[in-house]
């Protein structure tokens, strides 16, 4: 290895300093909001958000959000329902299509791909989509959040690429020689080998459902049917002063009620915590799908 020149040494130092700053820019807002959520009203009034660790952490905001009678509880339930039913159906619709389109010898494969590709380039737009969901009678139901997004064609194609790229055709041919029929091939060979991509895309769908908010904003009117994200949005939007959304929180008898800033911060934490908690364990699956196939330049 040749010795580094002075210029290269300076460059290496600058690179590392720059990246440390980048990491701080990502972390500081998160840490700041977590500590705000734990700060008592009087301490917040004194010190504002320049607090990294509250002197006397309190859970008042969380008690108000998660106490009985709070809309956040039903929100959590609705979100969990949306994620579980939604993701299950997503995979039930996405995987079969991906598998069928991965078959090189399928007659009309180009026609089907084109049929799907057109929807990736052009869409009906906001108003016609809304009218469809409304006419189907889905307003205020969890199906309004699940049915319109059953298949993400981009992710379906990523799945298809994985199946084409990592499962050799010879495997199927050998199974046919052994007398296996198509359902058996699917269940015994293709499905087990596709598990990595099913897990990855499944996680993407789950995160999509957990984080989606705009569809709930336009399709769900009753607070009791809302998932977490639109509730968070309402608390952020109307929180200060008007308190319209706070009437749906648990009633608590605090000597010192939490200020709206800490309530909002706590709500952000409640909404994000599930994702952050599973993130370290499943991060590699999140990333894997993007890496599938690599970049063949």
């Amino acid at each position, binding site marked *: 290895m040749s010795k580094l020149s002075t210029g290269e040494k300076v460059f290496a130092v600058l690179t590392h300093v720059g990246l440390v700053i980048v990491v701080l820019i990502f972390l500081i807002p998160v840490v700041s909001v977590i500590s705000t959520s734990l700060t008592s009203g009087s301490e917040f009034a004194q010190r504002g*958000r320049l607090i990294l660790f509250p002197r006397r952490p309190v859970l008042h905001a969380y008690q108000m959000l998660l106490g009985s009678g709070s809309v956040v509880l039903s929100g959590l339930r609705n979100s969990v329902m949306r994620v579980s039913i939604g993701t299950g159906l997503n995979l039930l619709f996405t995987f*079969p299509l991906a598998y069928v*389109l991965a078959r090189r010898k399928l007659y009309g494969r180009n026609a089907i791909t084109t049929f799907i590709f057109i929807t990736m380039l052009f869409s009906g737009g906001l108003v016609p989509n809304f009218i469809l969901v409304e006419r189907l009678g889905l307003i205020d139901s969890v199906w309004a959040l699940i049915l319109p997004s059953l298949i993400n064609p981009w992710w379906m194609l990523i799945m298809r690429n994985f199946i084409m790229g990592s499962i050799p055709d010879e495997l199927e041919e050998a199974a046919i020689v052994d007398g296996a029929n198509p359902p058996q091939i699917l269940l015994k060979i293709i499905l087990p080998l596709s598990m990595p991509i099913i897990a990855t895309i499944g996680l993407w769908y789950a995160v999509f459902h957990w984080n989606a908010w705009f569809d709930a904003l336009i399709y769900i009117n009753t607070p009791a049917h809302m998932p977490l994200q639109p509730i*968070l949005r309402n608390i*952020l939007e109307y929180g200060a002063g008007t308190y319209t959304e706070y009437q749906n929180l648990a009633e608590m008898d605090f000597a010192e009620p939490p200020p709206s800033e800490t309530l909002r911060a706590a709500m952000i934490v409640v909404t994000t915590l599930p994702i952050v908690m599973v993130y370290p364990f499943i*991060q590699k699956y999140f990333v894997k799908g993007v890496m599938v*196939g690599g970049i063949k330049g």
Partner: protein
Amino acid sequence: MESSSVEQLQAAQGIRSAGKREKHDLGYAWKCIKRDRFYYLMAALPLTWFLIFRYLPMYGIIISFKDYQPWMGVKGILSFDDWVGLKHFKAFLSSVFFWNIMRNTLVISLQRLVWGFPMPIILALLINEIQHRAFKRTVQSISYLPHFFSMVVVAGLLRAMISPNGGLLQEVIMRLGISDQPISFLTDPRYFRSILVGTGIWQGVGWGSIIYLAAIANVNPELYEAAMVDGANKFQRIWYITLPSISYAIAITLIFRIGGLLNAGFGQILLLYSPSVYQVADIIDTYVYRNGLMGMRYSFGAAVGLFKSVIALLLLIISNRVARRVGQPGIW
């Protein structure tokens, strides 16, 4: 459902490979379909979904040529009694808001492109320079994290940071003496767009860098060794080896970004804007949302939406053609 350009880039590889011609012969076709009936059966349900949830709304665009009212129901969509031709398009094009909305959409989008497009490339090049593996992994994990936050959460984090009531950024600004009172970032037209662009980069830069890191990892190390023997320094190696070898990823990402030029970030703007910044923040999508959907002017909203979809499609076709002209493979 929005997909990041990283995912689109991966998916695009599938579209291109499906370009082969097929034999057109009825007898042959029937034989194939009979042989593969299990597979057609399996695809039937998903394809029906596309028909209902993707193609029906496309047919629904027809209301933009009519005077459809919310109470008319399905019959109103199917009948041709209230045909008004291009009335809604003319109304939009001659509206006093038209130029402002178009300008905002394009300016915000171009600012995102100019500032946001190079960022993931720069981040990838920086991360690639780290030798220490644990530090490298930490930086990557932390930079991907905001991609998994919802847009609402990111808007909440931003509002907390810049809140005039004790927001961290405001405190820092005042202690540094940059301003002696809190700056109203979200209601001041001078700052609003920069806040949008900055927040968008914060959320997307890490995830966006993945694709470039993957491309860099695929570069043959012998190229670097040969360059070093020839006396190329670090910057020359980046300029002449790393960047050219990720040019394919750069090109495809750019096609999608130009094709999506009219998508100026609807969700984020809806979460952050207010009437005091409409003059710089109101884009086509927010306009359709407020007037078409909230204001129940369904036909007008559908017309503006169609206007946008057609231009977006043209942009994508043009950028794809340009990419192929300059020797990049393009999306199709």
